[in-house]
C-alpha cells in the first residue's frame, strides 16, 4: 500500500471537512489502521491541518492509530456478557494466546481486545474474531474458534 492508492480513495470524496470521518473510515478499511502518513495525506486533501486530523481520529475509538495484528479478537466486556461469563472467556483466550488485553501475539497474528459492548446482549457472552461474531459462548468454544486461525508470520509483501 502506498500513497497513490490512498489518493484513489480520497478522490471519491468532495474536498470538504465534513467528509473527514467518512474518509478516515474508508482509509482504515483499506489499510486496517491509520498510519501517520495516511493522516497527512487526508489532511492535505481535505485542507485540514494534520494535527487536527489526528485530533479527530484519536477521538473515535473505532479508528486505530496503532497497527493491529492480522486478526483482532474482541471479547465483549459489556454488563450482560459479564453476567453470563465473559471474564472466563477472556481468561481462556488470553491464556491460550499467552497475551493480555491490548497485546498482539509475537507472530503478529492476533490482537486481543475487550469491546465495550458488541450490541448482541441477548446472545451473551459474545466475542468477535476477525470481524466474525460469535455468541452464547463457553470458554471452550471460544478457544476452539481461536485455534481455527492459522498461526504463522504474514507473508512478506
Amino acid at each position: 500500500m502506498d500513497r497513490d492508492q490512498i489518493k484513489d480513495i480520497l478522490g471519491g470524496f468532495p474536498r470538504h471537512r465534513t467528509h473527514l470521518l467518512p474518509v478516515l473510515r474508508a482509509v482504515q478499511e483499506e489499510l486496517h489502521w491509520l498510519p501517520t502518513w495516511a493522516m497527512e495525506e487526508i489532511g492535505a486533501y481535505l485542507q485540514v491541518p494534520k494535527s487536527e486530523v489526528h485530533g479527530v481520529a484519536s477521538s473515535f475509538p473505532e479508528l486505530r492509530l496503532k497497527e493491529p495484528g492480522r486478526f483482532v479478537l474482541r471479547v465483549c466486556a459489556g454488563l450482560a456478557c459479564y453476567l453470563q461469563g465473559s471474564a472466563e472467556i477472556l481468561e481462556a483466550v488470553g491464556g491460550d494466546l499467552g497475551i493480555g488485553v491490548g497485546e498482539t501475539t509475537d507472530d503478529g497474528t492476533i490482537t486481543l481486545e475487550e469491546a465495550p459492548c458488541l450490541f448482541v446482549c441477548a446472545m451473551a457472552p459474545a466475542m468477535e474474531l476477525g470481524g466474525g461474531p460469535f455468541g452464547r459462548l463457553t470458554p471452550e468454544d471460544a478457544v476452539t474458534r481461536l485455534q481455527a486461525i492459522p498461526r504463522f508470520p504474514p507473508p512478506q509483501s
Partner: protein
Amino acid sequence: MNYSELKSKADREARVRFPRALVQLGGCTRTVGAGAVLQLLQAAVAKKGLMSPVLVAGCDGACHDAPVVIIEMAEGLTFRLTHVGPADVNEILSFWLAGRADSSSTWKGRPAAWPSAGEGSGFWGRQERRVMRDIGYIDPHSLDDYVARGGYATLDNVLRSMTLDQVVDEVIRLELRGRGGAYFPAGIKWRGARATGRSPRYLIVNAEEGEPGIYKDRHIMEGNPFMLLEGLAIAAYAIGADKTYLYVNGEANEAAGRVEDALDVARELGLAGDNVLGADFNLNIEVRRGGGGYVLGEESALMNSIEGQRNVPRTKPPFPVESGLWGQPTVINNVETLCNLPTLLANPGADPSPGTKLISLSGRVQRPGLVEVPMGTTVREIVYGVGGGPPDGYDVIGVVAGGPSGGLLNESMLDVAIGPGMLDPEGAVLGSGGITVFDTSVSPVEVVRRLARYNAAESCSKCTPCREGTKRMLDLLGAVQRGEEGRSGLEKLAYLNDVVGFGSLCGLGQMAPGPVRSGLAHFREAFEEAVANAE
C-alpha cells in the same frame, strides 16, 4: 411511481409470493450461525431445482430462539421454526416440501404454526407490537412486502392532505415523545426548528446506538428499513428539512447495509429524491457512519462528527433546533421515534396515548431479546413475564435500568411502571430502554464497578470533573471491593457523585453517578459488608 401504482403492484406480488422461507438473520442471530443456516438452506433449495425463494428477514426480537426460520406456506399459514442448526436443513426442507404441514404441525416438539395459540402468554403475551409488528416476518429488501402491509400509506396521505403545520400540530397533539432517552415531545422540537424561519434546515436520524445493552435500532433497521425511511420522510416534510443525515453506528454493518439497500430502492421508485410520491416534496438523504464511543450518541458530539470535528459535546444552549449543524436549525430524532410515525398518523383523530417502548432485555433471564411493551408495564412483568425470570437455581436480586447512565433497582422495586424519564430518583431511568437483570451469581458492588469502569473509559475528557471524577470513582469502588476503604470510602463516593453530576457539560457526565448512587442506596448492605472488612 405514485402510491396507488405501488400498492397495486405490492398486492399483486403478495398474492403470488408463496411458498417462501425467511431466515431471521441479524447482527444478533449471526453470532449463533444464522448466516450458515441461510447459505445451506439456499444451496439445498437450489440443488433440488426449486423456485421457492429463501430470503433474509430481521430477527423478530426473540433472540433466545435463534436461529429462526419462517416458512410462509400460504396466506394465513405461517410456521416459525426455532433453534435451527446447520444439521436441520434437510428436516426443514422435508417439513416445507412434503406438503403435510398444517396448523397442528410441530417442530422440535413444539407447535410450529405462527402465531401460535400457546404464545398468548410468556414472551409474546405482554407485548404490544407496533414498531416490531412485521419485523422478522417480511423481507427487508422488499418494498412490496412493506407496502402490502400498509407501508407508505401514511406518507402518501400526509403529502396529499396535510400541510407542514398540520403534521407538526398533530404530532404535538398525539404527544409523541422521543424514544432516544430524553422523551422530549418530537413535535415541539420540529416546531422549534421551523420557528427559526432560517434555512437550510437539517434532520439527523440518530441511529448511532452506542449505549451498552441496547440493540433496538439495529433490529428495526435490519428488519424493516422502509419503515424508518417512511418515518424520516414524514419528519423531514414537517420540518421542511433541506437535508437528512441518516447516521448509523460505525459497527452496525448489517443494519447500515439494509438501510442503504432500501434507500437505493426508495430512490429508484421515487420515495426519496425529488418530488416524493409525485408531491412537491424533496427528500435528500445521506447515510453517515460513526466512529464509536459512547459520547457520539450525544447529539452535539454527533453533529461535531458530521462537521469533521472532534467527538466531544458542545455547550447547550444554544440547542440544535436553533443552532445545530453549521449553526443552522437541526432536528435530531431517534430511529424508534421516527418509526412510530407511520402508525401514529395512520388514524387521524385518534386519542393521544403514551404508546409503546422497545426494551432491550438482557442479563440473567431465560428469554432475553428485544420486546415492545406498552408504557406503564412494570419492570417485574418484563423481567419475569416476558423474560421468564432467572435461570433455574438462581434468584433475581436487581436490574440495571438505563445502562451506565441509569441505575440499579433492587428486587423489591421491580413493580415500578416504565414511563418517560426517571424510574427512581437515585438513578434508574427508562432511557433508551435497556434492562439488564442480575441475580445471586454476582455481587451488586461488582455490577456498579463494571458500569463505573465503562463510564471512566468513555469519558471524552472535555470536562475535568467527568474525566478525573469517573476514574476516581472507579478506583474507590475497587478499593471498597478489596476491603481497603472504610466507611469514609462510601462518603467519598457520595461526594464524587455530586461533583461529577454537577460539573459535567453533557448527559454522560451528569448521569455517570447514577449507578454508584443507586447502588449505594438500594444495595447498601453489600457496600456496608465490603467496607466492614476494612474496619
